[in-house]
């Protein structure tokens, strides 16, 4: 979640980095040039045999121009990427309480399993008789997802959460079209607090997006939602637990209202990790929900993907699921890859979805089991409430003392008059070694700070995190503004100029202009 509500500031002059070094390195913190500055096009780090023939069948289409792409030897390449890696914050190194993103531990067993040749080295189009184990895993994972959600069918192929939303909303559109109502049911209701992907998805499919306000407690305003229900409503898209980290108290009532109006209930499952084993979305009246395997089932976030967003569907939508899906033919499993003879709405992606993520998620589910999954949800909620309770006297909560689910939300009312913004506060956390919480999201809360510790954190780790935030909060209240407004002082970079980056975009490396040419 990135928002630019905050302003950039010039830092204070004095810096902990003021001591200069010849190299620009700071002890173990090494600077690293771009590959284009250290590599050469004639260098390669891979030995390739000579081609067995020089005959070609390329017609007139052989490359004539040079790409000029530099190569590095293997030792040079290893060093380049190891140095880059050391400029990143990571869950493995410290608490990463990025709300709404669920930065929990990524078990290494799951990495190992995904790399078994029988999973990692199989081709999506090899004969199905040679991939029965892979199809069995997909079937077993799908069964688990249905059991955990009490839904009727799974669309396996969506590549990420937003892709899953698109899939679910396509299933809804297909159902509406099958009813002959595509011309009249054109409205999708989306709460103000929703992820940006929700309105973007609905708009992509040609729906008209109408906002539903939140009430004073952080829930969707029930009466406002009901007032918007009518024969034009295709669906409501609701996140539960919602983006404020709260369980929507009126969710069953809202589901009933949208169903009575003839529409469907799309649930954004981004926060399913809070309720796995505690609440089944199917019991709440949900018609479609994507599951972020990279959050709830801990497949690695990988610096921004790859994700995986299978979608569970209710009985009313199951028949419209996209291809492919796995069916059983006697003892054998078979992929249905074509829509002919089905009511499937089509295809979301080439091949069959994020198999590498399916293996990891399945390993996670097997490892946790019925008891571990429920415990994980409970611990996630417990950790978040503990953080909330331990900071409540210093930082302000937009919805009072109400218990949260897996993430604790604060606003910036407590910083009023201090000259310190949410952004400043977040940047000061960096100096203390923490990745900041999610800032300025959800949009309905001013200066939002959304903290999701996840179940992975130990009590000792939480206590240190809380003590750090308390120290920062008291420092802010004492008016020690420089600690915040110039932060970070101790990261690989000070604050970066995002305004300039957008004003004059430099989106790739270009060779430096020779001095003589530049002068002309």
């Amino acid at each position, binding site marked *: 979640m990135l928002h630019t509500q905050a302003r950039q500031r010039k830092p204070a002059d004095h810096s902990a980095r003021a001591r200069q070094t010849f190299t620009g390195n700071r002890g173990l913190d090494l600077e690293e040039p771009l590959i284009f500055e250290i590599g050469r096009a004639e260098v390669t780090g891979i030995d390739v045999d000579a081609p067995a023939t020089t005959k070609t069948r390329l017609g007139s289409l052989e490359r004539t121009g040079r790409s000029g792409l530099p190569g590095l030897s293997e030792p040079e390449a290893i060093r380049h990427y190891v140095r880059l890696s050391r400029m990143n*914050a990571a869950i493995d190194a410290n608490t990463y309480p990025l709300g709404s993103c669920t930065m929990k531990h990524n078990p290494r067993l799951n990495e190992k399993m995904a790399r078994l040749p029988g999973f990692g080295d199989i081709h999506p189009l090899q004969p199905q008789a040679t991939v029965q184990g892979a199809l069995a895993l997909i079937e077993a994972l799908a069964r688990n997802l249905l059991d955990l959600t009490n839904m009727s069918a799974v669309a396996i192929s969506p590549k990420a959460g937003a892709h899953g939303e698109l899939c679910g909303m396509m299933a809804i559109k297909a159902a509406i079209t099958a009813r002959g109502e595509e011309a009249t049911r054109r409205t999708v209701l989306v709460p103000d607090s929703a992820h940006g992907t929700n309105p973007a998805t609905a708009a992509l499919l040609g729906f008209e997006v109408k906002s539903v306000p939140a009430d004073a407690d952080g829930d969707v305003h029930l009466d406002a939602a009901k007032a918007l229900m009518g024969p034009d409503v295709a669906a409501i898209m609701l996140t539960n637990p919602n983006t404020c980290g709260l369980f929507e108290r009126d969710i069953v009532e809202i589901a009933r209202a949208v169903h009575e109006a003839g529409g469907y209930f799309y649930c954004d499952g981004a926060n399913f990790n809070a309720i796995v084993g505690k609440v089944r979305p199917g019991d709440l009246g949900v018609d479609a929900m994507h599951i972020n395997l990279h959050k709830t089932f801990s497949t690695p976030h990988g*610096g921004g993907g790859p994700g995986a967003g299978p979608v569970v569907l209710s009985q009313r939508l199951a028949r419209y699921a996209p291809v492919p899906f796995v069916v059983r033919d006697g003892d054998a499993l078979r992929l249905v890859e074509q829509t002919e003879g089905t009511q499937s709405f089509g295809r979301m992606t*080439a091949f069959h979805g994020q198999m590498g993520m399916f293996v990891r998620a399945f390993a996670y589910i097997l490892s946790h089991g019925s008891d*571990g999954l429920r415990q994980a949800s409970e611990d996630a909620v417990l950790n978040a409430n503990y953080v909330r309770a*331990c900071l409540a006297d210093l930082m302000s909560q937009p919805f009072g003392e109400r218990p949260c689910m897996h993430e604790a939300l604060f606003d910036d009312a407590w910083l009023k008059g201090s000259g310190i913004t949410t952004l400043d506060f977040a940047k000061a956390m960096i100096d203390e070694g923490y990745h900041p919480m999610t800032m300025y999201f959800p949009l309905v809360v001013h200066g939002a700070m959304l903290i999701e510790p996840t179940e992975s954190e130990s009590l000792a780790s939480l206590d240190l995190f809380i003590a750090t935030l308390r120290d920062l909060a008291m420092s802010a209240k004492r008016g020690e503004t420089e600690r915040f407004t110039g932060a970070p002082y101790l990261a690989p970079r000070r604050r970066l100029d995002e305004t300039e980056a957008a004003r004059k975009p430099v989106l790739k490396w270009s060779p430096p202009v020779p001095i003589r040419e530049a002068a002309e």
Partner: protein
Amino acid sequence: MRYHSLTQEDRADMLARIGVQNIDDLFADVPAGKLLREPLPLSPHKSELEVERILSQMAGRNVAASQVPFFVGCGAYKHHVPAAVDHLIQRSEFLTSYTPYQPEIAQGTLQYLFEFQTQVAALTGMDVANASMYDGSTATAEAVLMAHRITKRRKAVLSGGLHPHYAEVVRTLSQMANDNVASLPPDVRAREDVLAAIDADTSCVVIQTPDVFGNLRDLSRIADACHAKGVLLIAVFTEAISLGLLKSPGAMGADIVVGEGQSIGNALSFGGPYVGLFATRDKYVRQMPGRLCGQTVDAEGRRGFVLTLSTREQHIRREKATSNICTNSGLCCLAFTIHMTLLGETGLERLARVNHANAVLLADTLVNVPGAEVLNETFFNEFTIRVRGDAGEILARMAERGVLCGVRASRLLPGAGLDDLIIIANTEVNTDEDRAAFVEALKSSLQAGAH
């Protein structure tokens, strides 16, 4: 449970600090009767050893590409990935970080994204590339939407050489978004006239090269003709290694280039996760979907990188965004850029030549196989043969003989009268022995079919 860090005593202390009696007090907002109390219908937690046993058993029921002579392609390719790649992408700082929302502590991710964008732009011959998409097929669908935004027209013309899955993804999204698509019939010999399908509402023509049957397509003339009509040319590739040997789509005049990057750095993994590549001209950058990394300076004037032009994106623009996309394919993109850096221009060209040479050798050998005919005049590392008999049966017989020899065209295009076509990929992993095994298996399978 090995992944949980709290003890029962911790939990009790924490509940007391929060001021509630038990954990379900924190779930008090769940509507009456909806909180599960019975056990879930799953087995209890398992040790690492047990999980490894179960998954290894499942994996053992699949035939891995490296176990057999392997010639299956059609959008995903078996290549050798250097050991360094998989080691580096498992560095904690890459594997367990997220989107670089806090650039000061994400310069590692941001710098490799910037390097990746530069590499992709150079390979495709374009001005600018984004920080990757989910895969080649979804990148193609996004390119079509982008062309609609730029031209303010609503119809895409899809070549009959476009990978059928890619075409289906475009058609599905277009149908749902109320846009039009004209799909040309399967074009086995690259003889179609895409220009004839252009009308006043056409925003773009989508052509794949090498196409799904392996033919190379010269886009230059088509690009000129498209531009004369205000139509954008979207060039698609599914085999990124081909860019090392072939004229780049940018050099041939494409306006948007999209493709699958799996071949460089990424495992087959049964179809995903992969990495979509997306490049275009500078003038269209603000209509481009997906994340972009840009160069800037920090408060001390040092070079650094940030995500930029985010006003195109859903988290700022919501329903007015250029796309609903939120993530990219970060780790697959990292694997791509590391492998590409190890190769360099020299290594990539050599690798591409070995791929091409292996395909040429096999095609030449097949001239002497009665009942099999290579249909392509040109190809890179993949071509189509017509066999006497049903391709599916022949493939099954070859699989029984331990050779995974290709994809039957009818699996991708059922009911199109292509039941006797097999699409065959050759890469650097195929040895002389593999090719000999291929030819033997094909000959005996053809004979078995004749009897």
